[in-house]
């Protein structure tokens, strides 16, 4: 498989040279087209910063991110970053439909009718077509995050970057959203890079898992996930391969510094 994304010796330093804080030492990682890769690491290890560098939202201090061979210096076309804080990432003055429309409003060639159909199509995928005239603040947290997912998908990206997108919803909603994201991933052939501190989530969802060290971050090890697909919310979590990888990752994460 062709590498869609290459992260090469990416480093990030904050602050003036004298009192600089090294957030990311050097990270190497590549993601193939259609792959679902997770990055897990201890809290504050710089994994969100790494994802923002990949998204072109934050410049790297060293190294390079390449998307299909092109260096990323600004948010590239076809890459959408899904924020952890769904309630802050939706525009409260726009209806659900118009929020989704915001995801592809640069697509000028679309007629209003086509645009509406596209909104309804993606809202339907996340099960919210009936709520398109509502406002985000009228919806529950899980529904808001689904609107954000629909907005990201409506942009029809090649790659989705997920920054702990399930961490601020309740446990059951989280399981539902896991199912939804896997279904959408399967349907659309997207490439997904997920940052999370939830080991079970990473094991349940991804093909490979990159474990980061404490700050300053670097890749400690990349684990291939042998857990078979399609993944099932209950059974997959009881599979010995799931438990084994979870055990390994948790043990490594909990090791004293």
């Amino acid at each position: 498989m062709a590498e869609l994304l290459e992260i090469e010796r990416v480093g990030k330093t904050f602050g003036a040279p004298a009192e600089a804080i090294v957030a990311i030492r050097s990270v190497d990682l590549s993601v193939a087209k259609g792959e679902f890769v997770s990055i897990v690491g201890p809290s504050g290890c710089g994994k969100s910063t790494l994802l923002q560098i990949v998204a072109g939202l934050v410049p790297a201090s060293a190294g390079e991110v390449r998307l299909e061979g092109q260096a990323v210096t600004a948010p590239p076309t076809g890459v959408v970053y899904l924020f952890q804080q769904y309630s802050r990432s939706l525009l409260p003055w726009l209806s659900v439909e118009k929020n989704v429309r915001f995801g592809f409003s640069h697509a000028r060639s679309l007629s209003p009718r086509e645009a509406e159909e596209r909104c309804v199509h993606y809202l339907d995928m996340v099960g919210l077509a009936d709520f398109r005239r509502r406002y985000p603040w009228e919806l529950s947290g899980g529904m808001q995050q689904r609107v954000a997912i629909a907005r990201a998908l409506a942009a029809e990206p090649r790659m989705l970057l997920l920054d702990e997108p399930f961490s601020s919803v309740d446990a059951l909603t989280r399981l539902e959203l896991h199912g939804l994201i896997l279904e959408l991933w399967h349907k659309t052939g997207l490439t997904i890079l997920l940052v999370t501190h939830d080991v079970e989530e990473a094991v349940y969802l991804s093909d490979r898992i990159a474990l980061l060290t404490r700050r300053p971050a670097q890749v400690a090890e990349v684990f291939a996930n042998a857990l078979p697909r399609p993944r099932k919310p209950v059974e997959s979590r009881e599979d010995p391969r799931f438990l084994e990888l979870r055990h390994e990752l948790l043990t490594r994460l909990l090791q004293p510094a």
Partner: protein
Amino acid sequence: MSLRLRALAPGLAFIAFWIAALEVAARAGWVNRIFSPFPSEIAARLGRVIGSPAFPDALGSTIGLLAAGYLLACAAGILLGLAMGYHRPTYALLEPTLELLRPIPKPALLPPLILLLGLGAAMKVSIVFLGALFPVLINTIQGVRTVDPVLVDVARTFRRGVLKTVFRVVLPASLPMILSGMRVSLGLGFILVTLSEMLTGTHGLGAQLVDAQRAFRVQDMYAWTVVLAVLGLALALSFDALERRLIFWSSKR
């Protein structure tokens, strides 16, 4: 509505009480009957004032000048505020000038403006503009500065350009702050238009007020004061209605 009325009832009753007290005091001769407000007389004069040919002219003139100066100030304040709030170099360039001009009590600018622009509409629109500009400008800068950075990053990840980001995301997100500045500006603009009319004494409600006082038509003077009060109230209520429509979403988040 009846609930709203019930909430207002004590306040309205209190107004009725002090109007009645003024009436009784004037009739009983406890206060000077010529200079003090005499409610029944003011009411009678109010009818005549509103019916007079001078009234629509005065009202139209005051509202027209206020609207022109105020709307120009809002447009300029918002555009300049967006530029200063979003673009550091613009802020660095203009901020010292802003801090120098802002504390000037705006009525102090009336004498130079009269010298420069005369006694006509240009001077009055200018003083309203200058008075109304700063609250809108300051609040817009502040509003832009406090926009949630996540929203700006959302615009970036969906690859909106600078102008789209500013007008489609930053501007609406700052609107609650901008509107509270616009509310202050409206009050200041109303003060300044009245004051400039009083000073020049040619057109408008302020001029009528001063005319009545100088001609010793004391109860007419009070009637014009009532007109100004009602106009001020109408402006405030219209502003509330506009605000509710524009930022219906802001308390919900």
